[in-house]
Each structure stands twice: as structure tokens, then as C-alpha cells.
């Protein structure tokens, strides 16, 4: 096979682009797992919901309000969609997840699996499963940039940059601020933290809201690249689970790094052996389980 360095770099960039979505999603899962001890199976569905809020805000909201000229543009969607989904998340936590903290954590997985089916099922009924294009990309992000080794779409470069910024912002929030230290303390020993007068149930609710907002944010950023489909979440979530198994959910930086690295591994596989690109992450998972069962950054 003729391995061209330009081709490798190009696929690495595209892989990195997938990687930032893996990082955002696995980061959200890790944040939620740290505080609630559950795996949020609805994460993929809420990622999809985020993309749909952006799409519907752009195409349907104006006519619905009787103002056909009104659009929620891309920049607004970047803020609004995560907020809407965070609100949905807060409702889910307040009405359902809250009741499950005292029982086996597996029930949290089952509940969120049910929610994922409901959300995905509703959207499958109203929207084309092969996807609807999201045409709200701002003019300033259209076009291409010459990176020297390849011509890269400007939007993809932006999506990598903004996602990395959000990832590291989350890391900073959790590891370097007062709120973050309360969160981490709440993870370690909720009753002791509560005894210091910190409202732990509120922290838990906010954490879940923030985690799913990250998923929705990823959904909005992904919307102009991939088309918006009811199945986009279930396609990606199983891969993200494998990412989480590989990285371990012990550390925030761990999930970010693992997500980025695996995106690039996937990209490289597309150059070396394309048929394996869909499954390479799962094989990496098997390898890690054999060599380091607790995961690369795990602390079991």
C-alpha cells in the first residue's frame, strides 16, 4: 500500500474532528458518573435532541410563532440548545433519577435506556432516519483553510477549536474552582459535604444538567457536519461507551485525552485498513481490557 504522509495527516485531522465529539460525550458521561454513579444511556439521545433543537429552531420555530422570517441562528443555537436540553435533564433528574439513588446503580442504566428509546422513537416518527441537513452554518465559517498539508473546511477547524475549549473549560471548572472542589468532595463523601451546609442534591441536579448540556452542545456543533438524524445518537453512544471503558471514568482529563486519541486512531485506520474503521475502537477496548483491565486512567 502506498502510504502518503498527506493522506495520513488529512485522516488524522478528520479523526480529531470525530475525536472532539467522543471527548465531549465521554466527558459528559464521566461528569455524570462521578456525581450520580449512573451511566447515562440517554446521552446519545440527548446529543441527538440538541441537534434537533438547533434544526427546529432554525426551520420550524419562526413559522410556528407566526413569524416566518424568524430563525434561531447557529450562534444562538450554541447557547439555547444546551440550555433546553439541560432543562430536560433537570426534569429527568428531579422526577425520575432521584428515586433510584438508593437502589442498585444498574437501574439508573435501565431507566435512561428506556428514556433513550422514548426520545429516539418520537423523533423517528416525525423525521427522516437518513437525516435532514442543517443549513444554518454562518457565512463566516464557510469556505476552506489551507493548513499547508491539506485544504480543510473552515467549519471543521472551528468545531475542533470550540469543542476543545469547552472540554478544557470543563476541566478547569471541575479541577480549579471552588464549585469544582465541592463537586469532587460531594463525589467522595456526600453526607459529610452536606454536613458542611453544601446543598448536595442541588449539586447532583446541576451536574446532570451540565453533563447532558455538553451532549447537546456536541449535537449542535455536529449538526452542520453530519446531517441531523433521529439515529445519530444511538450510532455514536455505543462507541462512546467503548471509549469510556478504555479511558476509565476516574478522571476528566482522562476522558478528554482518550476521546481525542481514539478519534485519531479511527482516522488512521481509515488509511491503513478501511474496513476495520467501524470496529477499531472496540478492538482497542478488548486490548485494554486484556492489558490494563481498570482502563488507561481508571482507579478501580
Amino acid at each position, binding site marked *: 500500500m502506498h502510504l502518503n504522509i498527506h493522506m495520513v495527516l488529512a485522516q488524522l485531522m478528520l479523526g480529531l474532528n470525530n475525536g472532539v465529539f467522543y471527548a465531549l460525550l465521554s466527558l459528559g458521561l464521566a461528569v455524570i458518573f462521578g456525581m450520580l454513579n449512573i451511566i447515562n444511556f440517554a446521552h446519545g439521545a440527548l446529543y441527538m435532541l440538541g441537534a434537533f433543537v438547533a434544526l427546529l429552531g432554525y426551520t420550524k420555530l419562526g413559522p410556528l410563532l407566526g413569524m416566518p422570517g424568524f430563525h434561531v441562528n447557529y450562534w444562538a443555537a450554541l447557547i439555547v440548545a444546551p440550555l433546553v436540553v439541560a432543562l430536560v435533564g433537570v426534569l429527568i433528574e428531579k422526577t425520575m433519577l432521584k428515586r*433510584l439513588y438508593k437502589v442498585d*446503580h444498574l437501574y439508573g442504566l435501565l431507566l435512561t435506556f428506556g*428514556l433513550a428509546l*422514548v426520545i429516539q*422513537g418520537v423523533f423517528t416518527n416525525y423525521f427522516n432516519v437518513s437525516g435532514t441537513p442543517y443549513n444554518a452554518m454562518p457565512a463566516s465559517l464557510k469556505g476552506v483553510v489551507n493548513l499547508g498539508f491539506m485544504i480543510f473546511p473552515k467549519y471543521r477547524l472551528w468545531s475542533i477549536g470550540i469543542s476543545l475549549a469547552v472540554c478544557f473549560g470543563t476541566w478547569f471548572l471541575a479541577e480549579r474552582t471552588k464549585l469544582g472542589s465541592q463537586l469532587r468532595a460531594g463525589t467522595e463523601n456526600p453526607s459529610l459535604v452536606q454536613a458542611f451546609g453544601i446543598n448536595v442534591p442541588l449539586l447532583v441536579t446541576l451536574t446532570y444538567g451540565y453533563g447532558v448540556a455538553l451532549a447537546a452542545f456536541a449535537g449542535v456543533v455536529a449538526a452542520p457536519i453530519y446531517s441531523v438524524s433521529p439515529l445519530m445518537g444511538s450510532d455514536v453512544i*455505543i462507541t462512546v461507551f467503548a471509549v469510556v471503558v478504555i479511558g476509565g471514568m476516574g478522571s476528566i482529563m482522562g476522558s478528554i485525552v482518550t476521546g481525542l486519541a481514539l478519534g485519531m486512531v479511527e482516522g488512521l485506520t481509515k488509511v491503513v485498513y478501511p474496513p476495520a474503521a467501524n470496529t477499531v475502537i472496540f478492538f482497542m477496548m478488548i486490548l485494554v*481490557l486484556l492489558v490494563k*483491565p481498570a482502563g488507561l486512567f481508571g482507579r*478501580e
Partner: protein
Amino acid sequence: MNRLFWAVMVVLGLVAPFVVYPVFVMQLLCFALFACAFNLLIGYTGLLSFGHAAFFGGAAYITGYLVKQVGLTPELGVLAGTVAAGVMGYFFGVLAIRRQGIYFAMITLALAQVVYFIALKAPFTGGEDGLQSVPRGMLFGLIDLGHHYQVGGKPLDLNLYYFVFVIFCLGFWLIYRAIHSPFGQVLKAIRENEPRAVSLGYKVERFKLLAFVLSASLAGTAGATKSLVFQLASLTDVSWHTSGDVVLMTLLGGMGTVLGPVVGAFTVVALHSELSSIGSWVTVVVGAIFVVGVLAFRRGFIGELGRLLKRSL
């Protein structure tokens, strides 16, 4: 449970094809066996596998291929499917048992996704179409399982039905024996308190692996039989929806009860066939039942009944 109860059950099973459409009853039996096999893990060992469709569907493909392309007789085909699922279960088990709880569920789900991709891409599986027109064949080379008897003007495939019924009874009996053996007691001890089971000197990992292989093999038996009944092995059989369905069956019927998975499987299969007219809203209904079941009904039908009667069913 007393002998009379089991005798009534067997008689019901024997007369069922004359009352209800036989293929439907066979479908119920296949999924009931699938759910019972799954329950051996979640209900008695406390391991949540989210990848059991890999064994069910994987065996369906292997049996379908061997019966159709190699010309194996149906009983050998089912046996081969069972063994193949057991081998797959061994590899899944060895990997997944390295992690606990939630990770276990995610690992099995991810591994099952690999099987799904293989079923989608491999040259012998028929891709999106699945493996179609699998012959039912001659049992032991003698009895035609495709034969239809005319009973009261209706064609009934009784040969196949009783073949499936016998397989179900054997599988169910095996699971019943396993649960009520010393082996089953150790599994329950692991479910209740793993560190204590370790401290008592039990090789917990080995017990978990054995339970996993047994569960996977029987899930394979169910899938292999299903491929003969419907003459089809399809991508649905290996998809995560099927893994989710078997979790729901067990949850609804009652985890850790002997009869629960059977009742749950009957409920979910009947639900799917009753609601087939509303298309993809079925997913929404199934999801909603999941949510309600987890929030308000964690013991399941048989679990609640057992609590009322104050005995273990």
C-alpha cells in the same frame, strides 16, 4: 413448586398449538428461553449483560448457515448454534468479567456491536437482508419439520412445534436445575455479597464465567431454534434493540424468579405483535414501559406475586 403445577404447564404446552397459532407459540417459547437464560445472569448472579443479542442472533446466523448451506439436520444445527454461542460467551465473559457493575454492561454492549458489524459485513450473512429461507429440514434425517398437518381445516406445523417445545423444556429444566444446585447457591452468594463469597474461598471469577457461558449457550439455543421457526436470521436478532428487549422481558416478569422471564417474554412478544400496526411508536411504548417498570415495578409480575403469596416463585 409442586408437581401438579408443572404437569399443568406441560399439558398447556402440549395443547397450545391447537388453540393459538403455532408459530406465535413457538416465538413465545424461543424468547422465553432467551429471557430465562438471561435471567440466570442478571437475576441469580447480578451481572447485567447488555449484549445478549450477540449470542441469540449469532447462533441464529450460524445455525441458519449450517442448515442451509452445509445441509446439517436441524438438531445438529441447533447444537452447533448452541456450542458457537457458548464459545462466544467464553470470550465475552473472559473480557467483561475483568470489570464490575456498569462497566460490565458497557463492555458486553460494545462487544455485541462487533458481532453486529460482522453480521452486517461478512460474506455469508446476507448483509441487510439477513439469511433468508433457512430450511426446517428433517429431524434426525427422518421427521420432516416442515410438514403441516390438517387439523380442523387449518394447517398446523406440529412436528416443528413439538421439537421447539422439547428444546424449551430441556433448556428450562437445565436452568431450573442450575439455579437449585449448590452451583446456583454460590451464584446467589456472589450476587448478594461478592467480597464475602471471595473470603469464603470461592473462585468468584470462575463461577461468574461459568454462569456467563451457560447463559450465552442457552441464549444461543433460543436463537438457533428461532432461525428454524422463522426460517430467517436477521440483523434485528443481533442488534442492541434485541438485547434491550430481553432485559425488559426479565425486568417485567421479575428478575431472579424462575417463572418471571417466561411471563415477561410472553408480555413483550405479545406487545410487539399487538402493536405492530403503529410502526415505530412501538419503540416509544417499549421505552415508556421500561421507565415505569424501573421506577415503580422493580420486582416484576412474578416478583410482586411472590411477595403477595410470601414465597419464592
